[in-house]
């Protein structure tokens, strides 16, 4: 008779106790960082080729400098959540890339003034819209370092717009109202003739701001006073109602950030406000619609103002608790030096925050910004990534004339960020266009919310203004 082998209670306690102790103590033994390290976190780029380039660039840079570099990519939608987690834990990555101004995190990040200064010494000045998105004039702190921004043009289907007599696409917001019923009549199979989102997502945030600014309204003035409640904003809202009735359906109230791309590529809408990502996706997937997608700059409002928000902006922050802040700053400076490669890797999705960094390296410093802008114009006028015709991206080359920052005409501050992230403007427009509120009520409701948010951040000393807030 064989005796069954087993484990008595003493053996079990000894074994499990030892295992538990090893598990508990293991990480404390292993986590010692062997050499200089740099941990980077950023979004999974809409153009995957950019991530491939960036990861290789970062690795090669690390090898060259004797730094162990790790790059983590996460979804755009997870960036804020992740940033909150890192701040709460007081540990995480050395370089954290945001895609919109991280004003709320200002107390937790290092001042990037020295990096901006060094970059400007090497490449010339940072463009104004990027400065206003990363510099707080109240605290005089650079709370982020922007290496790129992305324009937000209009994307339209040329064949459809040609049929209604506008082969070059719309030029004014009013053109959209004119076109909507005509497209509906000629193409009943197109569900949403005009695809401007009215939901709680990124693209709608940009589109509603573009509409507001082009009608000469804004959330704040240049001195950070709340001025949303204005005749101009009311005019924009009333226009939004007309636009919705002329060319949209309730589908736009439920859109997420990818919906307008999908609708355009499926020919279920003929005009959207977006970066070139929808087009590049169509190209990459060899969709026939790619050749039919063309671009227009920001549409003009009733008095000729044409403004559009930057679609996203790459802004790196370095936490106060980062373990390798100096290495991180060095990395950023050299990354900007390779801006031309980065722009091409992104297939012209990224535009330079320091135009001079896109110039040929041998150009004299004083000429660099102009040379960089010229290079961008050349690239967009003759797209090296297979556009048909190659001049298709030319309207985007004019982005500096109409693109602006969140917070325009003032700086991007924590209050503007909260208004942005809690979708106050998309909700205001959605309330008006669906008739849940009159335009006056929707504006009044949004204005009250905005004022409360601004007052909160002013109390923290991060936002100026207040004396000229509208009642």
């Amino acid at each position, binding site marked *: 008779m064989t005796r069954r082998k087993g484990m008595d*209670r003493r053996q079990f306690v*000894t074994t499990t106790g030892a295992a538990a102790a090893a598990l508990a103590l293991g990480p404390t033994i292993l986590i010692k960082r062997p050499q200089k390290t740099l941990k980077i976190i950023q979004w999974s780029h809409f153009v995957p080729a950019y991530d491939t380039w960036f990861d290789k660039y970062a690795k090669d840079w690390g090898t060259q400098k004797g730094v162990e570099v790790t790059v983590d990519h996460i979804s755009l939608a997870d960036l804020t959540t992740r940033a909150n987690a890192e701040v709460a834990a007081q540990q995480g990555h050395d370089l954290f890339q945001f895609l919109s101004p*991280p004003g*709320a*995190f200002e107390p937790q990040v290092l001042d990037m003034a020295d990096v901006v200064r060094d970059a400007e010494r090497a490449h010339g000045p940072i463009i104004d819209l990027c400065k206003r998105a990363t510099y707080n004039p109240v605290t005089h702190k650079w709370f982020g370092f922007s290496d790129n921004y992305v324009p937000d043009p209009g994307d339209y289907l040329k064949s459809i717009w040609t049929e209604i007599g506008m082969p070059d696409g719309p030029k004014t917001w009013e053109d959209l109202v004119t076109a909507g019923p005509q497209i509906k009549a000629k193409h009943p199979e197109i569900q949403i003739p005009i695809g401007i989102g009215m939901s709680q997502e990124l693209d709608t945030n940009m589109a509603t701001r573009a509409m507001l600014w082009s009608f000469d309204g804004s959330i704040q003035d240049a001195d950070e006073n709340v001025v949303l409640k204005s005749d101009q904003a009311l005019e924009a809202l009333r226009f939004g109602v007309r636009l919705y009735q002329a060319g949209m*359906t309730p589908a736009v*109230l*439920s859109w997420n950030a990818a919906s307008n791309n999908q609708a355009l590529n499926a020919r279920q809408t003929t005009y959207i406000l977006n970066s070139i990502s929808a087009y590049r996706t169509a190209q990459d997937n060899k969709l026939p619609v790619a050749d039919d997608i063309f671009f227009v700059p920001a549409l003009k409002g009733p008095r000729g103002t044409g403004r559009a928000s930057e679609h996203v902006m790459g802004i790196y922050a370095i936490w106060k608790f980062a373990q390798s802040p100096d290495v991180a700053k060095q990395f950023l400076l050299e990354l900007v030096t390779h801006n031309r490669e980065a722009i091409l890797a992104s297939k012209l999705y990224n535009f330079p925050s320091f135009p001079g960094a896109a110039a040929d390296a041998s150009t004299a410093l004083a000429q660099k910004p102009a040379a960089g802008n010229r290079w961008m114009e050349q690239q967009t006028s003759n797209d090296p990534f297979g556009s048909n015709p190659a001049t298709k991206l030319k309207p985007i080359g004019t982005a500096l004339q109409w693109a602006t920052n969140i917070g325009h005409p003032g700086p991007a501050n924590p209050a503007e960020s909260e208004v942005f*992230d809690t979708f106050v403007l998309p909700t205001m427009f959605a309330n008006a266009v669906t008739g849940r509120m009159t335009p006056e009520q929707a504006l009044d409701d949004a204005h009250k919310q905005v004022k409360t948010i601004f007052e*909160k951040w002013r109390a923290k000393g991060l936002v100026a203004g207040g004396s000229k807030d509208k009642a």
Partner: protein
Amino acid sequence: MKFADREDLLGAAMLGPALAYVILLVGVPFVLAIMLSFSSATAGSLTLTWVGFHNYSTILADPIFLRALRNTAIVTIGSQVLVIVLATAAAQVFRAAFHGKRAARFVLLLPWAVPVSLAAIAWTWIFDSTFSVINWTLRVTGLLHGWLYWLGEPGLALFAIIIVQAWRIFPFATVIVLAGLSSIPQDVVEASIVDGAGFWRRLFKVELPLLLPVIAVAVLFGVVYTATDLGVVYILTGGGPANTTHVLPTLAFQRGVLGADLGQGAAIAVFLVPFLIVVAVLMLRVARRTEVGAGGIGAR
């Protein structure tokens, strides 16, 4: 006497990790949430400034919060009503012997096993306002002549959320009800058949009353899962259109994490606590009633 032989110490040591887990991952965050709800804390700062009941008075005056509170109740109750009906029906089906029963049970359990976020993404496509497969099917079969904007109209969007919540919880409820059915004494069922009770009478007059404590457990679990769920609403509608489908967890997330107002976000989240305490007490009571020998099904 060695440590391994001391049952009192050994018991405490073995219970310790579980207790530490609950304290660290449930207790501490809960206390932190209450502290945050009385502060003006923001996402980018580690300082807590006491503001008393300011956050609570602010949200109570906020129509978006009141709507989220109402939606939480509507979604929770609506989905649980559906769950009871579906789980009872499914349990009746799975009680019977039929070919392919094992495969069918496996398929039934899938919604329970699939991660909520993945399932919600799939449902987002099913309910997509432009490409909805439901609309397409209804139009092809001639049952729909217009177009249903599932996630673009508040009423339809809430209905869609209820459907998804019920879909993900009913397999669990079905398993519980099935277990309950198998514990009903066979002689009681047979006696009702002998007395001439048909299927419906047997179901409503004999089985359901006996199953009530079990169904209550399933429903109470479902209530907790639904009322505290962030994923389904966040992925399906994001709280839209125009903030009309927010539930408390999504609004707390939007205000606290995305909007950086941790104090207000925490206050919204803490509003769930009294409600969940009542549910927890009910759960414990029902669980006690169903214990063998305590007057439950197995007690007789």
